[in-house]
């Protein structure tokens, strides 16, 4: 997989397949990005299990926080890594040892570790790096278009709503590539 640029079909496939997500590096503080993503994904119907040894045993929005991936007593489909890039490798090593093995390793925006990615891929897992699942869900569902963000998609198909009002939308309608943001992609690669 080319980790500089993911086809929308790859991201959509992952977000349409996984159901249970373990979030490593979760923060219970309401103004932190990981809390945003945690809450947003739960509201979109995913089961999200927070992982943070400093908050193990607490409950946040009804979800129990675990100290480490092996402590989670149920199968996980995807591990979402909210840690510095250099900390991604040991998380991936733990993820590989889980039974059953998760299908996806996802590293958040600004997190990229090519060694960890290669290890995960060699063990049959799909990898996404330097992306946010909330932004990607918002982009592919068109929800993010409500705040003027270039979703980089075009479609003549209607999005379906998830119920509970019209401001939550699903991912089942198809889209094609829209306006690209080459300049920002180049800028992100600079130190």
């Amino acid at each position, binding site marked *: 997989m080319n980790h500089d640029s993911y*086809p929308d079909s790859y991201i959509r496939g992952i977000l349409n397949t996984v159901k249970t997500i373990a979030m490593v590096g979760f923060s219970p503080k309401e103004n932190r990005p990981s*809390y945003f993503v945690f809450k947003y994904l739960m509201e979109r119907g995913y089961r999200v299990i927070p992982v943070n040894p400093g908050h193990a045993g607490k409950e946040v929005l009804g979800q129990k926080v675990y100290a480490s991936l092996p402590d989670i007593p149920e199968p996980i489909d995807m591990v979402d890594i909210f840690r510095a890039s250099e900390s991604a490798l040991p998380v991936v090593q733990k993820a590989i040892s889980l039974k059953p093995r998760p299908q996806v390793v996802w590293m958040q925006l600004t997190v990229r570790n090519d060694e960890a990615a290669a290890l995960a891929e060699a063990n049959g897992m799909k990898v996404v790096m330097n992306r946010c699942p909330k932004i990607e869900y918002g982009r592919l569902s068109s929800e993010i278009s409500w705040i*003027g*963000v*270039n979703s980089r998609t*075009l*479609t003549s198909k209607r*999005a379906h709503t998830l119920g509970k*009002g019209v401001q939550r939308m699903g991912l089942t309608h198809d889209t094609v590539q829209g306006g690209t943001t080459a300049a920002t992609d180049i800028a992100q690669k600079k130190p």
Partner: protein
Amino acid sequence: MADAERIPGFATLSIHAGAKPDPTTGARATPIYQTTSFVFDDVDHAASLFGLQAFGNIYTRIGNPTCAVLEERVAALEGGTAGLAIASGHAAQVVVMHALMMPGDEFIASKKLYGGSINQFNHSYKNFGWNVVWADPDDISTFEKAVTPKTKAIFIESLANPGGIVTDIEAIATVARKAGVPLIVDNTLATPYLCKPIDYGADIVVHSLTKFLGGHGNSIGGMIVDAGTFNWSRDRKYPMLCEPRPEYSGMVLHETFGNFAFAIACRVLGLRDLGPALSPFNAFLILTGIETLSLRMQRHCDNALAVAEWLSQRPEVAWVSYPGLANDKYSALARKYVPKGSGAVFTFGLKGGYDAGVKLVSNVKLFSHLANIGDTRSLIIHPASTTHRQLSDAQKVQAGAGPDVVRLSIGLEDRNDIVADLEQALTA
């Protein structure tokens, strides 16, 4: 390449970007959501929206689904990460600077700008403690010399009003990068059809949508486009973006929103608190205009070149300033930045001076004598007797509004009719 990954062309984006079928009704044209407010799904949803934890609609001063289509449309056409629609081009500039500047800060601006912007920067901004330092786009070293530790941004126009000036965006972007500040480009006169400043290093693009993007002279509007290229946290110079915000319980916008954080800052700190929201009805009219942008802009440019060539042969005309003319001072820059055409706004000088200018604007029958530009209709103004009349003759010349100067905005009428009207007015 798989079909889903083909990159669509400009005309396709002009029609489709941002405009998805309405999720509830299936409406294909963009509906005009003429409402102040939007009901929440439940209390928790309301809390998520107010905390910026969910994407969605609250109140039209902060965002509106019709305006959002316009935002995504222009962002996509410019190659930016996000847009923010706003009440006018002037409001766009205020909200951009509000996100960047603290009292006592400076920004560098090209002295070849729309007169209204020169006025706004020189006078209105003083009340905020934002200090403009002028530089000359014909001498890039003046930008370099103007940089100080207080500099927070550089502001230029791609094609500069009153027309006939092409700015070397890439050279000034190099100065901005070296200074560690964002480059803001007003792309109103070029539109993304002729020039995409982000491709040349712009970090922020602003527009008056009132002009060619709307294109029909019926709606005032503005736009801010975030290129997603600037690192707001690197030098910690931009507290609106890199510091915890008390307005949002300590959230850091750059950390939370990544490469579209600037557009979010303009929305949730600028538009929300300063209040210049765009009406959804105006957004609808401007969107309809943008659908034909590529067709209109090419015709505007082709007509303008024909008129400029015709004027340059006339005995009554002393000079014509249009970069599309082969011998023009800006011809080389025009070939680089606006190869499809040099826009439709330009100036020319009358040998008969002030009186000839007054006579010309009085005698036209098809051209409209008014202060706007970028309309389907051809427009004319004699700045010395109107917009710049309170200045001394020396000040008029410096502002590009000498007594002999006439500004045209060439419309979409038949070329022969545009020329015939100028001919009868010049010889009447």
